[in-house]
């Protein structure tokens, strides 16, 4: 199968070379971090998790969102998604790999990685997060491989795979729920100590993930490799629309509780996010852009004229993706530390080294998606001939 990834036009190979260069730069930056320690990041005693863990959190959502094409197809027999499920699963695989990589680069002692398993500690949510994420990666590898092999041979997939697929649905929910529990179980951090974190994570995942899938599918259509079909894309757009609406609703719930109760420790974090705290306004422009993009994309998605127009839909999907990336990939983690447990505002921003490593990991994800999609779509093209 993999040989299909080795045949491509000039455009394909230029893209691969660009990705390899980005991954190479990330690897060099990681070796520097490995030599010198996490001092090369912007992290500190007070802001001890930052950009890496935030990307991890965001990407767990992207991984979980594969369920949004798998569930309608397998539980509701929504045939339009039939040819999309494997693309969703490949996206989940790439996202899981990126998640693991972001955890790895965040570790102070990467050579002791195996301690996670040798001294497995079920009282730690991190243990369960590892279990569900690795399990989800494995599920998606098995499911995509088995179902796609069957498709290639033109036979129905073996019957034993159906229960595995059904298991993968609640499993997808679990990965983002457990990731939310990493945060929402800590009495020390009022910003995260909220029962709505897990539902909010899921809503934001089910809007940003399918939004990314829409962008990928529209891109494939444009380069003439694959047309998912108008109805399938409409289906995805509907999912993004409702998930985004629910996400915005959940954010407003959080804001209501913080603002109306006026409980100072809780409120301080939201003040930092939207208005700045003690003169630190790092997050303010980002959060307002995120809010604005969410509102604009809601309008674009709820209006059938723009939703059903590919050009507008592409813009709306990009806005959703960026809006939620800002919310989770920038705001969510750092704000938990601002103010710190001692009530101080300690500034944090990622260093160049940190950003290059992160870019390298996104490069790995992009390369995986490119290769997996190339293989799948080349085989489909061959079968169609």
């Amino acid at each position, binding site marked *: 199968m993999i040989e299909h990834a080795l045949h491509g036009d000039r455009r394909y190979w230029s893209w691969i070379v660009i990705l390899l260069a980005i991954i190479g730069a990330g690897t060099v930056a990681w070796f520097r971090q490995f030599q010198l320690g996490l001092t090369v990041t912007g992290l500190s005693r007070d802001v001890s998790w930052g950009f890496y863990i935030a990307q991890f959190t965001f990407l767990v959502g992207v991984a979980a969102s594969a369920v949004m094409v798998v569930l309608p197809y397998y539980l509701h027999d929504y045939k339009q998604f039939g040819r999309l499920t494997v693309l969703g699963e490949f996206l989940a695989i790439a996202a899981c790999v990126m998640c693991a990589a972001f955890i790895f680069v965040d570790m102070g002692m990467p050579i002791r990685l195996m301690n996670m398993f040798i001294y497995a500690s079920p009282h*730690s949510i991190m243990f369960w997060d590892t279990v569900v994420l690795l399990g989800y990666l494995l599920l998606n590898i098995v499911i995509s491989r088995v179902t796609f092999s069957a498709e290639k041979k033109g036979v129905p997939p073996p019957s034993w795979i159906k229960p595995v697929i059904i298991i993968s649905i609640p499993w997808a929910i679990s990965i983002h729920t457990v990731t939310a529990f990493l945060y929402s179980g800590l009495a020390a951090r009022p910003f995260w100590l909220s029962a709505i974190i897990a539902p909010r994570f899921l809503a934001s995942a089910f809007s940003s993930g399918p939004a990314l899938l829409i962008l990928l599918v529209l891109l494939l259509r444009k380069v003439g490799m694959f047309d998912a079909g108008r109805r399938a894309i409409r289906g995805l757009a509907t999912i993004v629309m409702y998930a985004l609406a629910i996400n915005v609703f959940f954010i407003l719930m959080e804001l209501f509780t913080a603002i109306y109760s006026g409980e100072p420790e809780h409120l301080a974090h939201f003040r930092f996010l939207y208005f700045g705290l003690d003169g630190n306004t790092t997050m303010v422009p980002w959060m307002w852009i995120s809010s604005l993009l969410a509102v604009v994309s809601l309008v674009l998605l709820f209006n059938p004229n723009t939703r059903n127009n590919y050009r507008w839909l592409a813009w709306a999907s990009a806005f959703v993706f960026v809006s939620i990336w800002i919310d989770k990939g920038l705001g969510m983690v750092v704000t938990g530390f601002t103010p710190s447990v001692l009530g101080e505002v300690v500034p944090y921003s990622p260093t160049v080294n940190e950003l290059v490593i992160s870019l390298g990991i996104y490069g790995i994800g992009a390369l995986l998606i490119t290769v997996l999609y190339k293989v799948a779509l080349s085989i489909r093209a061959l079968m169609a001939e």
Partner: protein
Amino acid sequence: MIIDRRNFVRVAGLGALGAAAAPASTLLAEPAASRAKTASAKPLTAKRWAMVVDTRKATEENVRAAIDACHREHNVPDLHGTKDEIKWIWAESFEHAFHEQDLHYIPSAMKQAPTLLLCNHCDDPPCTQVCPTGATFKRERDGIVMMDWHRCIGCRYCIVACPYGSRSFNFRDPRAHIAEIDPEYPTRMRGVVEKCTFCEERLARGREPACVEATKASGMMVFGDLEDPDSEVSRAVRAHFCIRRKPGLGTQPEVYYIVPEVKTRDRPQFPPFEP
């Protein structure tokens, strides 16, 4: 054993009271041979170690002495003023240390008073709960929240979970920043989390924590077994109005702070309250 330990504390305390405090405590503190084959003194043991910090005695000098003694003895690198700073015990203003109390109207001298902060060795520590490898764990026999630096993977989840900021991470190789390495205690390496261990290595050799010993003469810090009603700490928490940091979180910190209080004789006598 308990009698021995109590006697030890009493003798050490008496020695500290007198003018000859320094020689007396040195005599008690130094084991016969520094590289002894087995622990030369009887270990100090307890069911639940606890500390009382008397904020009324926290002069600049005492606070400095406690911090220096600890950081020198435990090879804590001096990264002061950098984001990579490592602190086992440190001072914050009283107002800052108890910021959640929203202390607007206390005397400004008290707001500014230096307050020693260290690991609280909580009864219900969130850091050990979240640790994915058991690298930090609660010693059930005496309540010390321990660090196993051989096992820490540097995920920093414990730092995230600690409500007190008691934990530091080695963002870089600490050795280059230690003025004088004490060979009696290991340094750490980059990539692991560290914090106060209530000087468990000293307790095992029959010595009180370094900070307590260094400030013995002032009586600023009292250390002992809270399960033993006759211990000095038990008496101190009964005799004074003590507060703990963020008691509302349910972690049950074992470091208590004596705050200045109204003298009993100045307080109006109320009749017993009957609902």
